[in-house]
């Protein structure tokens, strides 16, 4: 009696995934195997339905992996790819360093203050993401708020807008809640008597943290890091608005291919490769989770 029910329950998420993930993914995959063409839309082949089955056959025969080969021939793609992973990895590392103390601090607060602080972490979402990034541009630009403040106290001004540092700053700023919340969830659930037990058995408070609190929070850290790393690797808005011309990130490459070069197959192929690499850490994480569950 149980199985059919779980089967029914799976229909809705399955349907959702089919419509909003699997179908678009197939479209993009098919685009990536097509060739660029001077037409509207700008790719070929397309299925000639008037030919019936033969049309579909001809369409399938014309699909190839040529675009992917092209990706390996131009170092731009590989550079953008590595640069994206590097920046996202760096930002995830910085996020861990900043997010962990914040989450730990909130989890150690009295319950009422805790709720207020969690709200404060989520609060930036009330404002449009775009507006917040523009605000950073206004702060960082050469004659912006930051330099005005630095100048007022007699410090040398900095010019970091349109550099990788600015992108990093933007990424860390924008994704901080996604790091803090899973970490907080894990730290908050931790049984306080575990730390007392560690101290009772001879740990100083610092040792108790390293031997008990920290290892038990690694799952939250992994969840937070993944939750941030994956969208950051494909981020477009932040590198576009805050990064300079030398900041190569895949989000921008995809945008350029689609809208500037009108090379839809190349853009699709880049997107597919990005997706394929991001699936690897997800699978690793899932396997780790399954191990813990067992």
């Amino acid at each position, binding site marked *: 009696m149980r199985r059919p029910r779980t089967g029914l329950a799976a229909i809705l998420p399955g349907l959702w995934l089919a419509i909003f993930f699997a179908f678009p993914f197939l479209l993009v995959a098919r685009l990536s195997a097509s060739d660029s063409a001077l037409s509207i839309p700008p790719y070929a082949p397309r299925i000639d339905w008037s030919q019936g089955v033969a049309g579909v056959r001809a369409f399938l025969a014309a699909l190839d992996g040529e675009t992917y080969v092209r990706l390996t021939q131009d170092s731009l793609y590989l550079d953008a790819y590595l640069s994206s992973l590097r920046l996202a990895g760096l930002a995830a590392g910085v996020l861990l360093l900043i997010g962990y103390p914040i989450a730990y601090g909130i989890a150690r607060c009295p319950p009422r203050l805790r709720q207020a602080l969690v709200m404060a972490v989520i609060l930036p979402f009330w404002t449009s993401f775009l507006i917040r990034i523009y605000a950073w541009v206004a702060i960082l630009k050469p004659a912006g708020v930051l330099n005005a403040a630095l100048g007022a106290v007699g410090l040398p001004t900095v010019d970091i807008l349109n550099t990788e540092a600015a992108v990093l700053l933007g990424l860390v700023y924008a994704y901080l809640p996604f790091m803090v919340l899973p970490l907080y969830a894990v730290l908050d659930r931790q049984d306080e008597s575990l730390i007392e*037990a560690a101290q009772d*058995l001879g740990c100083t408070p610092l*040792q108790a943290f390293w031997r008990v609190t920290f290892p038990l929070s690694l799952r939250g850290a992994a969840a937070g890091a993944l939750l941030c790393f994956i969208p950051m690797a494909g981020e477009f808005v932040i590198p576009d608005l805050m990064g300079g011309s030398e900041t190569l990130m895949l989000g921008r490459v995809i945008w350029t291919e689609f809208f500037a070069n009108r090379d839809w197959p190349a853009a699709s192929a880049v997107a597919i490769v990005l997706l394929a690499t991001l699936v690897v850490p997800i699978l690793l994480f899932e396997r780790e989770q399954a191990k813990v569950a067992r």
Partner: protein
Amino acid sequence: MSGRPNIGGIRETFAPWADPAAAPLVRFDGVSKAFGDTRAVNDVSLSIYEREFFALLGPSGCGKTTLMRLLAGFEQPDAGRVMLGGRDIAADPPHQRPVHMMFQSYALFPHLSVAQNIAFGLKRQGVAKAETAARVEEMLALVRLEGLGRRRPDQLSGGQRQRVALARALAPRPKILLLDEPMAALDKKLREETRFELMNLQQALGLTFMIVTHDQDEAMVVADRIAVMREGRIVQVGRPAEVYEAPADRYVAGFIGDVNLFEGRVATSEGGRVRLLSEDGPIEAEGAGPVGETAWVAVRPEKVAVHSEPQLGDNVLAGTILDYGYLGDWTTYLVEIAPGRTIRAARANATRTVARPLGCGDAVWLSFEPASAVVLTR
């Protein structure tokens, strides 16, 4: 102990508290601790001796856990001193105290194996690797968990987890082991077995145990002495039999076991005997009381005899059976001796069959010996 009748019918040989020359291992000296407006521990003075199994007994919120946490170092006293081996340990943080605690939740480290959990305290003490391994094996054997050292805590049953927690706290050889409601999470049968295991362990290791519990049966069985707590204060400290048979006041009498209370004015008090004029008639009891003032006579249900014929003599009360409960080993009777006034009596079911069974509505006569009753002035 000689010179006065033995209480409880058990000859005790271990009684360091009766020896004025004995130095206590732990001494609470006028200790108070408040949380906000709540005085969790209020001017408590208490001595615990080496090799003693000491129980702190009281309802939840009476301050017994706070008192234990003061000894473990998780709380700091507002006033008074906590001494261990004659030294004030107030300034020592928990990790420097040779006192280990078994937590009510067990607090086993979920990311470590059973063996790693047990070795945790030894590692902090800097015990060599080989010796640690040997001690872990020894502990596993002691709590009968041989071969389970590589399991994770979540792969164990509740009873096994409890024993790991015990082994972990015992492994670094504490001067005193604190047990915070150690059996609260176990089912009844396992709880009863564990009591005896704990006692054997304490005897075998020659250690000092302090247990916090709200379960009077548990305290009675395991402890050498019981401290009954109420609202942050110690009401009575004594051997289980003393606390049961000679309660200090009505609170202790009512908290430990069932009790019948007679309230009245003391008419006479001479020759170790008190005559109390209560609403239920004159009551005779052994003891002393302030003549002309209010006092109480307490008598336990099992000391009240139930007869189906009228009785002569002191302390006889006529009534009708209102209700009874058959418990197998005992039958308890609720007897109404006046409208709205009931007395509890209990009778051991010493025979399988009874010629004249009693039932609801039967007229009965209750009686008890003056020596079986206690005079209480508080």
